[in-house]
């Protein structure tokens, strides 16, 4: 699997490269600044890009902007955005094109290597992985989601974190069948048509983020 890494901090850049290589990813290019990122993403079209939000020269949100721009140029280009802090606002912007293949995680998550690698693979496979912090921050104050039952909201939160039905079932101690029933209820209650082209899981998460 071909990966592009964008990270300005040398220590983290080397660590990420080493980590991904250890799990048999093919790191095709490493970028350490904002301006180089977009052309690289468009030229390389990696299977997944791991991007730091804040990059030189402005040290603002150049990484995020490049990720969004790259997905506009190459629809559905999988990007996993890493940051020292997460903002639901940024998550919403990333998901704004209503396609999957988006991840948004705290850098802290990298220390759980197995889960991080899993997240990279999920994003590469078109899934959506939101940091538990984003999910958690919205869980309490999501009034428009009042139509959902408590259990359904839990399931939606797990879904936003990028978990598969099986994983959700495992975490909530219910059967996979029960999970898929909850998910169907969620789709129905949020008015997501069962036969649309759009990635329904992404839309559900988006509804969740917009809540």
């Amino acid at each position: 699997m071909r990966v592009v890494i964008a990270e300005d901090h040398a220590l983290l850049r080397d660590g990420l490269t080493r980590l991904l290589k250890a799990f048999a990813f093919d790191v095709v290019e490493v970028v350490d600044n904002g301006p180089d990122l977009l052309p690289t993403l468009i030229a390389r079209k990696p299977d997944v890009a791991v991007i730091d939000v804040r990059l030189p020269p402005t040290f603002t949100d150049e990484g995020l902007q490049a990720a969004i721009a790259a997905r506009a140029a190459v629809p559905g280009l999988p990007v996993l955005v890493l940051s020292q802090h997460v903002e639901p606002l940024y998550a919403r912007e990333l998901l704004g094109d209503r396609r999957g293949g988006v991840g948004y995680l705290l850098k802290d998550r990298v220390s759980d290597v197995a889960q991080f690698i899993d997240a990279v693979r999920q994003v590469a496979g078109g899934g959506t992985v939101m940091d538990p912090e984003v999910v958690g921050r919205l869980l309490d104050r999501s009034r428009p989601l009042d139509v959902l039952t408590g259990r359904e909201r839990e399931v939606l939160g797990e879904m936003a974190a990028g978990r598969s039905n099986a994983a959700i079932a495992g975490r909530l101690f219910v059967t996979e069948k029960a999970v898929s029933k909850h998910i169907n209820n969620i789709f129905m209650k949020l008015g997501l048509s069962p036969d649309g082209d759009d990635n329904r899981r992404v839309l559900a998460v988006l509804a969740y983020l917009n809540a």
Partner: protein
Amino acid sequence: METRDWIRDGLRSVGGGILAIGLAITNIPLFVFFVLAIALTPVWGLGFVLLPLVTTLIRARANLFRRMSGWYGVPIPSPYRPAPSTGLAVGWRRYKWILTDPATWRDFAWLLPGAVIGLVLGVASLAIPIYGVEGIVLLPLWIWLGTGWYGYGVIWPIRSVNEGLMSLPQGALILAIGLAAAPQLRRVDGLFGRLLLAPTRNAELRLRVDQLTVTRADTVDAQAAELRRIERDLHDGTQARLASLGMTIGLAEELITSDPATARQLMAEAREVSTTALVELRHLVRGIHPPVLAERGLDGAVRALALNLRTPTSVDSALTGRLATPVESAAYFAVAEALANVTVHSGATFAYVSIRQDGELLHLEVGDDGRGGADPGRGTGLRGIERRLAAFDGTMTLSSPRGGPTIVTMELPCALSSPKTMLSSGTD
């Protein structure tokens, strides 16, 4: 030594008196010009051009008077409102600005009385010493001429050589009195001028507000920049290192069974990163508020700072007790910045810091024997010191001739700043 100082002051004041005579005379044409400029306003609006011009001259004259009074211990602050930022040097806008500033009219009111007082006092401060000199110089003449057509001092006319001899002590005494009185006469001139040329209470408060507005904006800017710097340092330093630490440990965890050698190496790396993170954090903390400053106050913190410098630095501190924390911190960082400049730019072999408290004023002096030529306009460091101190009504002056030595003198009030008391007592 003391006598010499006293004579020097006297001679200088006599010189000041002569200058004052000349300048006092210029008041008269200035007065006439001003009246003309006002009177000619209806004539094709000539006043719109003339008044700004003549006012510039009057203000230059008044400012010179204010400066000179300062030399004799009567400092007079400048009272003028800030000029309109846009528009021409002449014209209606200027005209209005000049006419609505009470300081313009107070200057005008001073011109004639100021000229009279200046002339009288100037002539007096010149005439008394000259008369004294006359007594001394003319003595040989009396002995030679011995005629009775002229007198000196209390003896009038002088009829004999013996009486002529008496002019010597008298002349010496009068000269001494003249020299002693000259600075006092200058002071009186200054005190009279101050009645009209100093800012009124209103103007003083307005100037104070202007100054506070500027320093407050500077302070807020400086603080915001400081917070941003701290955020950056934490984000790029400690946070990044801890994230990488987690990553390294995580990878080691994965490899511990399959590849224990690499895992061990990763753990060693992790330990190193954690040490670096701590060091960085410590530096950051020191940049926010040095622990030694919290523990030992300004005195101890500056001594600790001096020990860490490459340039040998002596610290001479006569502080008793602790200062208010904000003042302490501002003073510390100002000294630290000045010393950093010494090490980086001056090429000095020796530097010193002197700290002393004089009533409610804290004096700080940082000097070195380096190459000099420091320019506050060029670097941001010195400007930073100024801003830091300005927040507390403190000031910085720099003396750095090319070739050195460089001396940075900083003063800041160490009791809480005056405006509070000014406002609460300013009910009159």
